[in-house]
């Protein structure tokens, strides 16, 4: 054994890169199957954009579980609320969304997204205090309570906005595609990918480079120890929960623009989707969630192109395959 000086860096934990290679491998395998490279590029870009949106929605769920062992079945409600709140801003300013100027459009979209995040974050505060605090530490009751919360939120949306579908057309400057040779990539998808990447990088930076992130990661490892050191982990958790809810709201706005419509039942479909993503990624892992979201989106896009019939069950098959390989998800969070 060699002596280690105090200044020597700590031995780095081994990087587990197999999950990172997986989506790349999937994409490469698809090239010969799809045949035309331009179609492949378009589909890959579409998968990336869809994956980023799913990631934004799912990241809060996985963080909340990782930090406090709380399984929130009502996470989908934040997504729907975010989307509906955005329509409050988007509808009155519909005319300035029609103007073909990126800055004019963004000047409406940005406040809409911020308002959505604020409202769903505030809703997160209420949900955490009212629904989750009393049943903290009891999985069974958490699932029941948050399921009840999801129903109440969804039905309130129906009562306030009515059962009809609300159209949310894309702003003029984000319509259409960038054409590179014979490859067409929709402009909105580029924007969605950029926002998703920014959120991912921001979460990674906060978790790995700040004291707050250090505390969160320490809390995931050993909650009691962090409390014993004098930090109020409950408050930390509330912050994470609100951030997760706000991100879900942002995801809801982006999803609404992607689908160009808002409906109260969108929370149901998306809840299932983000559950599959966080299970694939390993509950509590942000990196796993990111890869899981991209994989789910890839399966949806490639699968929808190659075998449309399979699209109904493809997510389940993907989940089965991943869990056969790694029973606790791509990146298992060790403490649970």
């Amino acid at each position, binding site marked *: 054994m060699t002596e280690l000086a105090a200044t020597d860096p700590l031995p780095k934990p081994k990087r587990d890169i197999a999950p990172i290679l997986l989506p790349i491998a999937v994409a490469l395998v698809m090239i010969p199957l799809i045949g035309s490279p331009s179609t492949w590029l378009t589909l890959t870009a579409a998968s990336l954009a869809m994956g980023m949106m799913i990631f934004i929605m799912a990241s809060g769920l996985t963080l909340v579980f990782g930090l406090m062992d709380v*399984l929130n*079945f009502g996470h989908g409600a934040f997504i729907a609320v975010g989307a509906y709140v955005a329509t409050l801003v988007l509808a009155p300013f519909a005319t300035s969304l029609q103007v073909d100027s990126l800055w004019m459009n963004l000047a409406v979209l940005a406040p809409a997204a911020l308002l959505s995040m604020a409202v769903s974050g505030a809703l997160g505060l209420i949900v955490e205090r009212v*629904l989750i605090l*009393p*049943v903290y530490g009891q*999985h*069974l*009751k958490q*699932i*029941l*309570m948050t*399921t*009840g*919360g*999801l*129903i*109440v939120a*969804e*039905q*309130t949306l*129906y*009562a*306030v906005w009515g*059962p009809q579908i609300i159209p949310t057309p894309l702003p003029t400057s984000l319509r259409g595609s960038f054409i590179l040779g014979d490859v067409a990539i929709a402009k909105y998808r580029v924007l969605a990918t950029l926002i998703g990447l920014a959120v991912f990088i921001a979460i990674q930076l906060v978790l790995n480079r700040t004291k707050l992130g250090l505390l969160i990661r320490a809390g995931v490892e050993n909650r009691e120890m962090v409390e014993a050191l004098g930090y109020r982990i409950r408050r930390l958790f509330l912050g994470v929960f609100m951030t997760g809810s706000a991100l879900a709201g942002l995801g809801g706005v982006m999803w609404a623009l992607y689908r160009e419509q808002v409906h109260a039942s969108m929370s*149901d*479909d998306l*809840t*299932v989707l983000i*559950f*599959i993503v*966080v*299970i694939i990624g390993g*509950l509590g892992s942000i990196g796993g969630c990111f890869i899981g979201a991209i994989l789910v989106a890839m399966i949806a896009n490639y699968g929808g192109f190659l075998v449309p019939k399979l699209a*109904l*069950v493809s*997510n*389940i098959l993907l*989940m*089965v395959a991943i*869990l056969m390989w790694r*029973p*606790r998800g791509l990146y298992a969070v060790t403490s*649970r």
Partner: protein
Amino acid sequence: MMILSGDPPRNRMLTLVLVLIILALLATPFLFPGAKALNVAAKICVFAALVASYDLLLGYTGSVSFAHTMFYGIGSYAIAIALYGMGPHWGAVATGIVVGLPLAALLALAIGLFSLRVAAIFFAMITLAVASAFQVLASQLSWLTGGEDGRSFQLPELLRPGTVLISKNVLGFEFNGRILTYYLVFAVSALMILALLRVVNSPFGRVLQAIRENRFRAEALGFRTVFHLSYANCIAALVAAGAGILNALWLRYAGPDTSLSFSIMLDILLMVVIGGMGTIYGAIIGATIFILAQNYLQSLMGVASKAASEAGLPLLPGLLHPDRWLLWLGLLFIASVYFFPTGVVGRLRNLGSDKSAGSSH
């Protein structure tokens, strides 16, 4: 005592209520003439069995499954497709049962082995995902399932309303095939509930409770928890499919709204929680309260909504609209999980035990 597997209601009030419910259900065809009362009674029977089977999972093993309506739907669709495709005779009924029940059990086994093997916490999420995929599948395979419209079918001769078994001048009312079907539903539901009582009071049921209380410890005692949980999952699925068969026979129809929708899953959850988790008897109480409320309170909501809109109140008409029934259900659900998690049965039993403890002092 034998028939209740040595697990009586253990409370005088509770016994009285249960006996009243069962007598009322038995006497519905004579006491309350009319199609609606009989429909409500049949629905109570079917749901009591369905909810009791869910209680085996939620109350006795402590695992939340969102796929219970899937098994219910498999039973409904199996009998509907068989009777639709093969014509109204008993062979088709038998085929539906022989295909539906094993299919439900196998699917339950597959889900159980798969999701319980990886991590118990995944169970609720995986069942939700599988159930939603199944729902989409059922509405997409319209050549088989009839899509969103579902399948209506004819019953065998003996069970049709037109078949008069005992004419009106013998008993004072007509005993027809419809009433026979009702008693069939009642008897099979009762048998399934008694069988579930037998299961939860067997050594196997005790192991399930041990797993619920402390899975790690149960495993340390040498019980193969995955085996026990999968087995419980299969039994619950079988009973759910059985309830689905009864439901389809009663309605002469199977479709996504009556047998697969997520709102039925919520109804089941609510009935279990209201009645009392982990008691089996709670299923009967919960189903009765809930279905009576659903059938008779919803019309009251309509009246209240109208009154509110005539009074010119804002927002209230929308909130009280009968379509918003689920909103109040959700609130009730949260309140009952929070304020009385042991349900009606647990409450009554606690009251009883408090009194007897007080009198012994």
